[in-house]
């Protein structure tokens, strides 16, 4: 029983970050119809920024976290402005190829700047875990969960309660009509990409002190984010949030009770199960045919 509870707790903590990664990716796809292959690199970028600011320059960790998020947004806006804006109207495969090229160049750039040796970000929290009855969890992980939930909540408010959110949702539903209603579509695209990138960079900076920072850390994370958005349906934000927690549960319990070596394969197994049982998807999915 304790083991179940401990796995459940770990899954919830992990699921928070997965949801952050998932909604960033699904938001960009939903509004821009772009499969963002730089998502994992923005996650890595966030982690390196946290390392640079908190680890090398000795800044306050929380301050570094906020700055990593802002820098991630800036980088996202730059990518949108230089690479995606000129390609407006291109089909999904074309933008995908450009994003793959950008992802390769970014990862090699990180390798060039930071080297292949793993870096660690100093954690501001005490090392001893918090014991809650029969289960325990590290202070730093609780903090990650807290920030993730806060961001998820803030994100929902932004989408559902603000004028900006209305404009974004309008662009998502019908870009042409939204433009006729006076929504600045180009600005919406830049903001969307910046927001999604910022979420990925924040996730990277949050997890920096828990794992180590390497140039290839984004590869697996990007694949998991893809699995999450497929589970929830591309462009479906609540779906991606649930998908994040579903994947975390599958990984935790799969690793705990089946085999830890295949932990990272759980996402794919979930996708296969969804394709066999419910090819139309767990939630409503528009993209599918056949």
């Amino acid at each position, binding site marked *: 029983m304790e083991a179940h509870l401990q796995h459940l707790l770990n899954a919830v903590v992990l699921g928070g970050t997965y949801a952050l990664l998932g909604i960033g990716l699904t938001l960009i796809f939903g509004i821009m119809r772009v499969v963002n292959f730089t998502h994992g690199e923005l996650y890595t970028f966030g982690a390196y920024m946290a390392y640079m600011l908190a680890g090398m320059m000795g800044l306050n960790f929380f301050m570094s976290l906020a700055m990593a998020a802002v820098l991630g947004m800036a980088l996202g806006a730059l990518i949108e402005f230089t690479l995606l804006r000129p390609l407006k109207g291109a089909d999904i495969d*074309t933008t995908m190829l450009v994003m793959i090229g950008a992802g390769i160049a970014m990862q090699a*750039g990180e390798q060039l700047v930071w080297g292949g040796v793993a870096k660690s970000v100093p954690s501001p929290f005490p090392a001893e875990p918090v014991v809650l009855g029969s289960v325990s969890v590290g202070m730093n992980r609780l903090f990650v969960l807290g920030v993730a939930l806060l961001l998820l909540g803030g994100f929902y408010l932004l989408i559902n309660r603000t004028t900006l959110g209305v404009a974004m949702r309008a662009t998502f539903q019908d870009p042409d009509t939204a433009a006729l209603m006076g929504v600045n579509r180009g600005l919406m695209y830049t903001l969307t990409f910046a927001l999604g990138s910022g979420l990925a960079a924040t996730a990277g900076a949050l997890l920096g002190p828990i794992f180590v920072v390497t140039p290839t850390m984004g590869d697996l994370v990007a*694949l998991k984010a893809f699995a999450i958005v*497929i589970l929830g349906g591309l462009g479906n934000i609540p779906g991606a949030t649930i998908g994040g927690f579903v994947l975390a549960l599958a990984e935790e319990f799969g690793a705990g009770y089946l*085999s830890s070596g295949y932990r990272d394969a759980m996402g794919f197994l979930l996708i296969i199960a969804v*394709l066999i049982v419910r090819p139309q998807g767990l939630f409503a999915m528009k993209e599918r045919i056949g």
Partner: protein
Amino acid sequence: MTARLLPWLFVLVMAVGPLWLGDQYILYVLTSTGIFIIGAMSLNLLLGYTGQLSLGHIAFFGIGAYTSALLSLGFDLDLGGAEPFVLGPQPVWVAFLGGILVAALFGFLIGKLAFRVRGAYFVIVTISFAQVMRMVALNWVDLTEGPMALNNIPPLSVWLPWDGVIPLYRKEYNYLLVLAVAVVCFLVIQRLVQSRVGRALVALRENESLARSVGIDVTRYLVVATVIAAGMAGAAGGLYTHYIRIVDPDVFMFIYTVTMVIMVVTGGKGTLAGPIVGGLAFGILPEVLREVARPEVQWIIYGVAMIVVVFFLPQGIVPAVRNWFAGRRKRVAATALGLRKETSA
């Protein structure tokens, strides 16, 4: 006439030229480039002719490589029964054909599964497939040796009238073998795309609903194309594994799929010559860059090259050259016409 002879002239030059040069390094580069070109040609069948961006193609290459290696080395497998299943070393060509068959079988299964979805979903499913293959290769240590890799894989052998059956250790023979397999794959693809199947594939690339409405069994044709492409990628994997003679889980890395995609897109997807032109460019480019740039810088150039190609040569090199020639012919014809008018006036 010249247009029909040109490909054979190219094959002849490729067969004789490098051997005449006799430089071992050039032979090595061309052999590995040739293996990747076979992979790119098979990918082109999916990417270029059916229009499906399959980003897990390296999985079939890796499956072919591992299957061929395991069959030629022999293996034992504990299936939970009293006695483990033991298979002794098989002749290399049996192993090679086994690799092609198993890769094609996976092509069938994945085709059946992945073609339930299209677009971004399809892309992500295929990427995940290759990643899971990598994890299986890493974790199933009893069979694959995991990160320790499979070593001492025997080279392919060949019967020569003057030597009898000899194992192909020499680079010259391996190079010619790769060239021969590439020619066979090219001819198969050429026949295929000019047949009924090929026309059905192009029809569904251009407009899937329309193709469906005139009675083309879309999914069946897609699966057929995937099976053939997977078998060819498996053959490339087999050639690779018996040439390099070591195979580890890194063979499944995403970057290799990307390399094949760049080759196809740069050369011109949906053209027969495209993967060869793009393959030669991107097979030789890293070797040239190696002299002047660090590996990281090479990858940056790779990524940027991919963006530049999509931006400025979206159709690829082969269609661009073809259009240029067509345009020139038109201009030449126009000038000739103008001249005649002047003389008659």
